């Protein structure tokens, strides 16, 4: 079952196409990475999903049904550029936003209270937003995004401006929510986090879908059969002279072979020749590397 199914969506503005025939599916209960360089059309696409704007062509199914007036209350959206009403108090503000998502007063109060407790910030209830630091208000924004327990949470650069401790705190909460069945769309430039957290990604450039699928599968697809081999002692000069070998440090090399079978044969040969090996690992490309490579190739093609 897919929480979201984007089908052939097009969105045009006065003089450019922001979203150009994009299609992808997001399986329920997974963390999904929406990637792309600045100006690729991510925000335009998110605005269509959150019902802020409408697609010119194509449709989006949310939990199997087309987007409708009830969809926004099932979605929690934290935009990249985000703000709060400075003059309002923390508790009052969170309750206001929760009620706009359809919660009753008592529900909103209880849930806001729980979240503040979870983050150990109940003392902020009567603080004015303008007294909060950037990191503090980011926590409040996160709570505002998830307080109504949406089925789908969309987070645009959720960690920008957060210190490592708070970053980890939010990251833990995201994973917890996912484990409880919430689906999450994650739009970010921090590739190591994508690799760490996302199950599936889509890569968008200039409004077009240039790559999509499972993170592990994509890394496999883009692998170049490079391996890392650690030797027990100093590496003989003969090995370093071989084709495709790059010396990493005194005891390890990186080597590229045609496939895994050839590589294993190569290893057996070296071991038999009296070169004990302590480590062997396939080197998969990082999502970051794939991102850069794909976007650059795509740009050359379109130019």
């Amino acid at each position, binding site marked *: 079952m897919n929480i979201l199914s984007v089908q052939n969506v097009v969105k045009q503005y006065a003089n450019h196409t922001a979203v150009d025939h994009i299609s992808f599916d997001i399986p329920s209960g997974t963390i999904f990475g929406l990637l792309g360089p600045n100006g690729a059309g991510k925000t335009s696409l998110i605005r269509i999903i959150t019902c*802020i*704007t*409408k697609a010119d062509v194509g449709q989006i199914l949310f939990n199997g049904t087309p987007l409708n007036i009830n969809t926004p209350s099932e*979605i929690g959206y934290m935009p990249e550029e985000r*703000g*709060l*009403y*400075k003059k309002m108090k923390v508790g009052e503000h969170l309750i206001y936003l929760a009620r706009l998502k359809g919660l009753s007063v008592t529900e909103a109060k209880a849930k806001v209270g729980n979240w503040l407790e979870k983050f150990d910030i109940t003392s902020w209830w009567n603080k004015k937003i303008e007294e909060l630091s950037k990191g503090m208000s980011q926590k409040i924004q996160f709570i*505002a995004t998830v307080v109504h327990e949406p089925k789908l949470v969309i987070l645009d650069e959720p960690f920008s401006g957060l210190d490592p401790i708070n970053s980890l705190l939010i990251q833990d909460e995201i994973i917890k929510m996912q484990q409880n069945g919430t689906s999450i769309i994650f739009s970010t430039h921090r590739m190591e986090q994508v690799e760490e957290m996302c199950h599936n990604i889509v890569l968008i450039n200039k409004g077009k879908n240039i790559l999509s699928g499972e993170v592990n599968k994509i890394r496999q697809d883009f692998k170049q059969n490079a391996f890392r081999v650690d030797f027990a002692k100093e590496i003989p000069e003969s090995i370093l002279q071989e084709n495709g070998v790059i010396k990493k440090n005194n005891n390890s090399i990186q080597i590229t072979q045609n496939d895994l079978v050839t590589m294993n044969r190569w290893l057996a040969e070296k071991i038999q020749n009296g070169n004990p090996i302590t480590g062997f690992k396939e080197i998969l490309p990082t999502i970051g590397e794939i991102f850069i490579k794909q976007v650059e190739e795509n740009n050359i093609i379109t130019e």
Partner: protein
Amino acid sequence: MDKLWLIIQREYKTRVFNKKFFLITILTPLLIAALSTVLAFIISYQSDDKMKIAIVDESNIFQKTIKDTKKMYFTFYSKSAKDARQTYLKDGFDALVIVPPFSDPNSTSHSIQYVSKKQININIENTIERTFSKRIEDYKIKSLGLDENLIKNLEVDISINPEISVTDGNNIASTNYSNLRTAVASGIGGIMGFLMYLILFINGSNVMRSVMEEKTNRIVEVMISSVKPMQLMLGKIIAVTAVGITQIIIWIAIFLLATTVFQLFVDIPQPTDLEELKKAGSSIDPDDIRVMMSQLMHELTQIEWWYLLPMFILYFLGGLIIYSSLFAAVGSAVGDDIQEGQSLVLPITIPIILAFYIMTVAVRDPDSPLALWSSIFPLFSPIVMPARLAFSPPIWQVLLSVFLLILGVWFFVWLSGRIYRVGILMYGKKASFKELGKWIFYKE
């Protein structure tokens, strides 16, 4: 609807429960009252100094009697004019008045000498002129042997009684009204027009600032992932309109309180008492402030408040909704660049200011074509029509004006909503009128 209600509540609370609202709403009328009191005091200022004035009466017509006034004490001085000039200061007088011999009773112009250390001021001059001319007049009447009653009968005092007469077939419908009625109507019209102008400006620019704030601190994107832009804009406009009504209510309360307090301290005779006094033949000084107040109160009770007040509220709502939606549209297009905003705000402020000036003309000449058509055009009518209403304009004009006002509300809210929904999400684009025009026709 629930969401709209939530937005209205928040927008209303943030506006009413803060210091600025208190300052503007409570202190503005107090400040105006204080200012007008000070002005009135300055205008009516008279020096408190009491003056002792010596009179040398060479004409001998005053018979040593001249009534003292509040600030002037007259004493007859039995010295020659020449001596008096030298001694009046020593004898403790502030000034000396010399009345030369009075030769020809047929002459109409007489001069009196005023001697003092200081420049004569207009108050002293007026008082002396009044006092002495009356006495000289009496003297002339006597010495020429005229009948005092006959002379009284010569006095002519014309008052115009305006009457509106409309011929309808064979029936002639006439309404009489007093001059004071016209003045009161102008006053009410002017005050209503001015209040409208004030509230439109205060609350209109307030809406604009709040939209700009939401856009620049980016809360707006969070908001419209929960509510429609139109809901957000409408919520704001309705809240601001409610704030305006709150202000009006507070002002009316302050006004009523002030008049009650005033009545407690100043004893204003009832109009019926005045009539009885007149019948009884006692004289009523029409310049007496208390009599004027009484007549004013009487006129005020004669005004058709049951008609005026609801109409005023109707125009108030219409005007506030039209202009705050326009201000919201501009605010959404401007963002944080106030400089750039000025050029976009101008087209909204110009009709308000124009309407205000037309209103001042309408109060003086409520049936002129300018006043008539302006009170029908929906961008002007919220300010101009309230000014005309006290003069009871023909019903077709009022109906047409109200109809167009409602149409205007619908149209301008729609127009502003179209601009607003695009504007609040548009960053870094310079908003020109051409751009705004395009936004209106954007698809969602």
